[in-house]
């Protein structure tokens, strides 16, 4: 079976101030139809660049990307636009709905771009909105919808042209817990029932249970989280970090606490009780790699 998404040694570098940095570094990835893959990683890890590459919005410096068997480096810009239109559904962190259109027209937009007749696209849009329990809101504009509703409209829009791959960028970041779970379960349901591949990029650790496969991106390198890393959560900022790459650690009652930065550690030092009582639990390492306990002050 042809994988929906195949990345082979994909690297993307940027040069700033005479220094070349690999935002995505020799990434290999193969995703099958119906699979829901979540890629996590801290800020600056290269998640956005990876999404732009997979979304055919950015060319890799080296390596190849194929979507449904179409190698992106072999396509013209017009063909890439067509591929994005028909093969990829985009879901954005900030929803990115068109403010002057109502929900139906927003959902129908990819259909318009694909040349569907007005009747065809409105029928399809209304079916999708109905399936996402938004039929009552179809004539509302984005500013009249809640965050959860906007994200469901965005999901419906992503499904409009029946794409093989859905790319979701932080789909729960601007949603409350309930709406976030609902959005993710929708994506899970779409992957399971329609055989579409869903690739979610997030740093929201609440949603990791939904993944068929969970990957970790750090410094542009993609890792199998379960196999490669001990992941800890900074108790101050809540960011997930690779334990062995923590900026600093503390020993508290015989337990190691990992921090993403010296700043978080300083905040913690000022009042440890405050942070241990927050909802950010300090995840125990899950890999064979033992976190170091040096640098304690």
């Amino acid at each position: 079976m042809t994988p929906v998404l195949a990345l082979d040694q994909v690297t993307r570098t940027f040069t700033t101030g005479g220094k070349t940095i690999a935002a995505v570094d020799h990434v290999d990835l193969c995703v099958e139809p119906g699979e829901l893959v979540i890629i996590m990683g801290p800020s600056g890890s290269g998640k956005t660049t990876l999404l732009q590459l997979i979304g055919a919005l950015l060319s890799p410096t080296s390596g190849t990307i194929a979507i449904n068997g179409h190698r992106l480096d072999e396509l013209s810009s017009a063909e890439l636009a067509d591929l994005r239109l028909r093969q990829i559904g985009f879901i954005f962190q900030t929803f990115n709905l068109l403010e002057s259109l109502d929900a139906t027209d927003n959902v129908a937009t990819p259909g318009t771009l694909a040349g569907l007749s007005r009747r065809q696209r409105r029928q399809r849009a209304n079916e999708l909105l109905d399936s996402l329990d938004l039929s009552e809101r179809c004539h509302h504009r984005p500013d009249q919808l809640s965050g959860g509703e906007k994200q469901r409209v965005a999901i419906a829009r992503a499904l409009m042209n029946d794409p093989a791959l859905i790319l979701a960028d932080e789909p729960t970041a601007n949603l409350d817990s309930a709406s976030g779970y609902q959005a993710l379960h929708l994506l899970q349901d779409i992957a399971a029932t329609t055989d579409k591949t869903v690739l979610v990029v997030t740093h929201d650790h609440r949603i990791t249970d939904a993944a068929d496969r969970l990957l970790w991106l750090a410094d542009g390198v993609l890792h199998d989280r379960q196999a490669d890393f001990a992941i800890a959560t900074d108790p101050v900022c809540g960011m997930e970090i690779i334990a062995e790459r923590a900026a600093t650690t503390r020993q508290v009652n015989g337990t190691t606490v990992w921090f993403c930065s010296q700043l978080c550690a300083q905040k913690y030092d000022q009042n440890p009780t405050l942070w241990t009582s927050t909802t950010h639990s300090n995840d125990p390492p899950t890999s064979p790699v033992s976190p170091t306990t040096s640098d304690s002050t």
Partner: protein
Amino acid sequence: MFSLAFGNLARERTRLAISVGGVAFAVTLIVLIRGLFVAYQSRVADYFDGVDTDLWVMQSGTADFFHSISLLPRDLRADLEVTAGVAETQPYVARLVALDIGDSDTVLYLVGYEPTNPVTGPRNIAAGTDQIGPDEIVIDKVFATQHGIELGDILTLEGTPLTVAGISTGGDLVMFQYAFARLATARTILGFEAIDNAVLVTLETGADDDEFVATIDSDLLVRTPGEVVAVNQRVINDGFLPVIEVLLALGFIVGIAVVGLTIYSSVIERRREYGVLKALGARPRHLLAVITSQSLLAAGLGYVLGIAISFAARWASERWVPQFITDLRTSDLAWIAVATAVMAIAAATFPLIRVAHIDPAEVFRS
């Protein structure tokens, strides 16, 4: 894409109002200036078009009747009348004459005519009569309105008091108006007892213009009515056309600038949305459709409003500023509509260039 263009416009009402207002202003400016120009040309032509003759015989070297004056000996008419092929002749006697009305100095273009054969007389009588006596005068309605003159009032021209017996239309040349007195009266006032300005010649049926011209004195200038109209219209063209063209260009530029800036600012504000469209797979033609539709819609509304304002302005000027004459012709409204569409497309150019440079990858940055 049309619904997105319409939605964007409808959602940005202030910007739409500025855009439509700008186009309406430009269209009004263009329509009224063009209307004024056409009206000037038309008024010059109106009188000469209505003079029923085959040929105008004038002094050699005469340009038009307003910048140069043709002076012919009065007995020339008798010579022309006996020339082969001539059926009838009429004298044309006319000149600008100054007069005082109240505290203001003004001028009239006084033309002499015979009420029994009013070839050179007033075109249309709006009030009173054209069958006037030796001490009576017919003045143009615009002149009467401007100076508050009514039938029965007395105007004094070169010391000769004349009673207003008729008010005519079609004799407004904007800068001055026609007035008509009996031929003998006009000769006395203008000092043209022994002079005609021109002789109007009606040829016999089947007679040839060229044969007539070959027969008469080669120092005389002979023009057809069409040539007389053209040469007098040229006065308006030469004097006003460059100014009119500059004003039309300004109107056009104002329209492009207003629409262009408002659409451009809209594009800047909706930069992310255009990025989303590109990320979703929109091709350049889709974005072209959205932006050009917006521009054309705004310009279309502005055009309709501008035409409405122009007609309202024309209606108002006819009542309160009669010297501000405008002729709004369907053909002019049609080319102004095309010009407005061109204006809209030109205005969409810079926004389109801006959109072309939006990187769709930006949409992944929150």
